[in-house]
């Protein structure tokens, strides 16, 4: 391969992509990702109104930190801190966070004692790295169970090595 051809190939196949990479990194700065909500959360709410109702069993074995969130963009996976480590899907749209799918089996069956039936809708508040959720807890498919206002505070963001 001649020197001239090598230089031309280098400019075209290495130099041009490098410039393209710089352009991509520059234009990507304008993109915004959803707010970080991953990590463990403590629930600050009064569950007393549930006492005696058939929904109480759904919350019975859940201890603090009440739930953990695993996040992939606006898709969330909630894991309740009970022995079964119940998982629930969730979503985030701007600052609105929802736990639990509307069309789950538990809702259809009306099994109010099952942790899978727990739902919430909440608004996210941010102050630096601190995050809190304020909203309402419900039990899907059980209209006689009262909706509970709650506040949840993030304890730890997801563990990152070396941090």
């Amino acid at each position, binding site marked *: 391969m001649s020197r001239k051809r090598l230089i031309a*190939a280098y400019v075209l196949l290495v130099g041009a992509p490098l410039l393209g990479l710089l352009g991509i990194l520059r234009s990507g700065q304008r993109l915004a990702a959803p707010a970080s909500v991953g990590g463990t959360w403590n629930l600050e709410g009064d569950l007393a109104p549930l006492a005696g109702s058939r929904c109480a069993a759904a919350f019975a074995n859940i201890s603090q930190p009440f739930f953990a969130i695993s996040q992939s963009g606006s898709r969330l996976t909630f894991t309740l801190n009970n022995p079964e480590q119940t998982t629930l899907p969730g979503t985030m749209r701007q600052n609105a966070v929802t736990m639990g799918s509307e069309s789950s089996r538990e809702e259809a069956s009306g099994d109010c004692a099952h942790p899978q039936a727990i739902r919430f809708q909440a608004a996210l508040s941010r102050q630096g790295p601190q995050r809190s959720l304020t909203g309402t807890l419900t039990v899907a498919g059980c209209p006689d169970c009262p909706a509970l206002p709650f506040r949840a505070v993030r304890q730890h963001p997801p563990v990152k090595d070396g941090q």
Partner: protein
Amino acid sequence: MPNLGILILQIGVIIGASRLVAVLFQKFRQPKVMGEMFAGIMLGPSLLGWAAPHLSASLFPPSSLGYLNALSQVGVVIYMFLVGVALNPKSLREHGHTAVLASHVSIIVPFLLGAALALLLYPRFCDDSIGFTGFALFMGAAMSITAFPVLARILTDRGMVGTKLGSLAIACAAVDDVTGWCILAYIVVLVRVGGHASTPLWITVSGLVVFLLFMVYGARRLLRRFGVACRETGQLSENALALLIVVVLASAVITEHLGLHLVFGAFLAGVIMPKGKKFVRYIFDKFETPTVVVLLPLYFAFTGLRTSVRVISDSQMCFFCLIIILVAVAGKLGGSMVAARAAGSAWREAAGLGILMNARGLMELVILNVGLDIGVISPSLYSIMVVMALVTTFMTTPLLEWVYPLRLVREEISELAQDELNYQPAAGHVTL
């Protein structure tokens, strides 16, 4: 204290499953490592956790995974050391312009496409704790890596190590590896500094410079004695071998404490080791079998336990998975092929190089695990990228057979024999 019963049971099940699946994959002319990776995925939530959740929960209780992870990290540290030992800078010099151009293009083109893909993925798979630059650079690095040991294994299996294509592929993969790890080291520093890491940036950077200088100009000279001893006696004393392991572990721990990752130190320790044939062969004889048979399957299983291919269950996730695989193949296979062609190789040879460079294998898994550990990729994207690594590695052997059939390899070997060309690169030692 770990529950030793559970840990030993886990190790037994993992080794058994990985051997079984590896043998099955070999029947389909796939490299063993492909079967071992697949076995790891099968033991996780993708299959065992889905088909037998109670069995999975009792075999891999969350409280036991820390010990399994620790063992698997030891395995990957030794493995990265071996990858570093197998690297021989001479192999690049022997191929001149073609190798330099092809290797650089085979990094930059997939890197560019990976970064471009980040524009699409960042708002959908990331959160604001990770900046776009760190994510885009990570995606670029993950797309541009080549599984140097898998590539060497495929070449050895097909008797292609001595061919022009084989030696060119080894030279390009060696450059890719070194470049890929340097880029990843930069990304780890970038992400950890952005994420308020415990190690300040100035300590990381100045510490790394001092450590690199010490390893290249200090430790390397001392290690030459190992090479001389091995050349003269054909072996190392037990004390020398123990000292060598201490050097590897110390190097891994130092890079970890500087804010990087264990794997960088282990790789660096391997790179600065003597490159004499006898020494390299001796090191592989001593370390390869326990690493490949016992420790690496644990790493694959740990990777599998973090991977859930069930996230790719709806049409949107299938779309992203497909796009990621297409971009990975177009960047690495296409980029390497075009570069080799531009450097004067024939189309068939250029396509062969592209196919070989497209195998990502275990190296991709190591990169992805680093990315998940530092939080630069989310669990869902991690799972999709693991699938991409499996697919791109799986397709290597059948595509190579199609483009560069064994008949051509035999013809080329017989021509080379006639020309009395006898080229044996050090990478032929790698049998993973």
